[in-house]
């Protein structure tokens, strides 16, 4: 008869939930490769691997699009079969990836989630992440404050509806929008995580709403596109732009006053703490606690503080292991 395949045994020397001696092999899997944010995660992870005593090696691999849930499931399954000792990964889909985590735990692997956890989140599996919703709310509140009582017209540039990251950032934004009726959402157009597309849609939004007051963009390409479009429309500084991530040109935008505020997460720390937790779990065992890697709100005023600088230019010599509130 047919039955669901129990995550079929045969796993070479998996972790033991503590007390592991000798070399450790970890798989570190982002939501997607090919984005600045996840590169920071990788650097952090490798830094941690290098620093941790004993022979710790990490295997970095990921799908090419955050939307490729099946792809990530396959990838993680391949790692499990391959017999790595632990998984440090960011779940592209909370509910779906929960299965994979279970499968990994069944085989005695140590699992740590970074950036996004699973649902339900097994107790044994810590999450090293930013509270995206909270951060989004902080950013949007700041936008609301800027626009003042009379409020105004707001445009929203999401990047990939249906992905956890996008939707949590949208959630925080919309929570605050609800609480502030004076803010009117007049346009919502996706950037598809592409700078040029973001530029295009913002161009067109500004054409459709010459009296636009603010833009909230949910990730780097969106912010850059919005800023660029505003610049090209000659409205730099007149339109409040708040958004996410900290690409060099975003920071430049803040300094020039084109961008009002940026939510800076601490991707380096996600990779860094994620790996350290996994190693701790494998070596010492015991239960691992969640880490809130925090988020800084970067504005013209604090952009030059040195801890912000450290956050923006992470180096393995003095890793930004705590995040300024900003």
């Amino acid at each position, binding site marked *: *008869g*047919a*039955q*669901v*395949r129990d995550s*079929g*045994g*045969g*796993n*070479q020397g998996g972790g033991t939930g503590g007390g592991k001696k000798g070399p450790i092999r970890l798989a570190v899997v982002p939501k997607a*490769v*090919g984005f600045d944010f996840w590169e920071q995660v990788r650097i952090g992870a490798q830094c941690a691997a290098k620093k941790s005593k004993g022979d710790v090696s990490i*295997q*970095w*691999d*990921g799908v*090419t*699009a955050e*939307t*490729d*849930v*099946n792809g990530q*499931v*396959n*990838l993680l*399954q*391949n*790692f499990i*079969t*391959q*017999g790595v000792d632990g998984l440090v990964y960011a779940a592209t*889909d909370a*509910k*779906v990836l929960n*299965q994979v985590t279970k499968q990994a735990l069944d085989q005695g692997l140590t699992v740590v989630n970074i950036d996004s956890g699973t649902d339900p989140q097994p107790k044994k599996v810590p999450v090293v992440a930013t509270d995206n919703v909270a951060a989004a709310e902080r950013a949007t509140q700041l936008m609301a404050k800027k626009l003042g009582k009379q409020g105004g017209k707001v445009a929203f540039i999401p990047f*990939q*509806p*249906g*992905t956890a990251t996008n*939707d949590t950032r949208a959630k925080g934004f919309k929570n605050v929008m609800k609480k502030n009726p004076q803010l009117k959402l007049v346009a919502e157009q996706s950037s598809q995580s592409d700078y040029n597309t973001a530029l295009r849609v913002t161009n067109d939004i500004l054409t459709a709403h010459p009296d636009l007051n603010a833009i909230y963009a949910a990730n780097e390409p969106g912010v850059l596109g919005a800023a660029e479009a505003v610049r090209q429309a000659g409205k730099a500084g007149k339109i409040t732009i708040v958004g996410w991530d900290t690409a060099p040109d975003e920071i430049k935008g803040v300094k020039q006053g084109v961008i009002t505020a940026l939510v800076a997460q601490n991707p380096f720390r996600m990779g860094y703490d994620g790996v350290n937790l996994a190693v701790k779990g494998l070596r010492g065992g015991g239960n691992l606690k969640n880490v809130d890697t925090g988020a800084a709100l970067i504005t013209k005023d604090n952009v030059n503080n040195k801890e912000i600088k450290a956050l923006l230019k992470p180096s393995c010599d003095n890793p930004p292991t705590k995040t300024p509130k900003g």
Partner: protein
Amino acid sequence: MSDTTATTGGRAREALRERFSDIVSQLAAAGALIVVFIVLSFASPVFLTADNLFNIGSQTAVTAVIAVGMTMVIITAGIDLSVGSVSALAGVLGVMLITGAGLPVPLAILGGILVGAGAGLVNGLLVSMAGLNPFIATLGMLTVARGLVYIFTNAQAVFGAPDSFRLLGQGVIGPIPIPIIIILVVAVAGYIVLSRTRLGRYAYAMGSNLEAARLSGIPIRRYLTSVYVISGALAGLGGMIAMSRVNSGQPNFGIGLELDVIAAAVIGGASLFGGQGTVLGTLIGAFLIALIRNGAVLLDINTFYQQVIIGVVIWLAVIWDQYRRRRLAAASE
């Protein structure tokens, strides 16, 4: 007269060789497949483990199943760019039939397949009735189907399917994963259709010389449409398998899938100008791609380099194919 017989003898040989050269491309791809297989067995200790092989099998199921339908379409000198979106649409609606309409799983799966077939029907009618270029017809469906699935789900994954739904994509019968069994069933069915039925015969004929097919009194429209319906239905099945593997309806599934599927068919010897292609070849193509992906992970090759390698290996596989064909053509004189 003895020389005449000699010539006929020669021609018989020629006939053989021609037949041969049709399978040779598959053999070539198969050759590449075997080479990659051997290399990986040595390169990675875990590659040859039952687990890993089953993984590969199950993970290839979606591509392979859809590629069988694509092969038929390509044989008619057509193409179906919409399979990725259609599989997502069909899969998600299939899951909704369970979670929303509360249909029993088997019926829901059937439903998903029918949704796919429906999309295929639209493609088919656009091509055969409206006379649209298949590329355009299915390119339109690519965006339409994707848009629809987002509209239906508001881009949110659909959860709440019972564990019984996992069977399709994660189940096993005895030691064999069900997805692998599905591949076999679909492949055999596809093989029979292509080699033993009118539909298959006419697919080749239409792709080889549409006018000739028309002049021979073949009801072009009906058969052309059927081919797209089949492709859509298999995309639907593939979608259901994919959703079952993650036991949820993923509206974002299958973006860019069409390229993998088409690549599988073409690596397997199908010609985009029609008249050529076989199920066996396509399967080999699908597994070749899957194997390369799997191997790249096992060997911890940097993702970016993976892409370069995959591209290059595809090139090499097909160049080898070409080379073999040439050698054969030369030999046949």
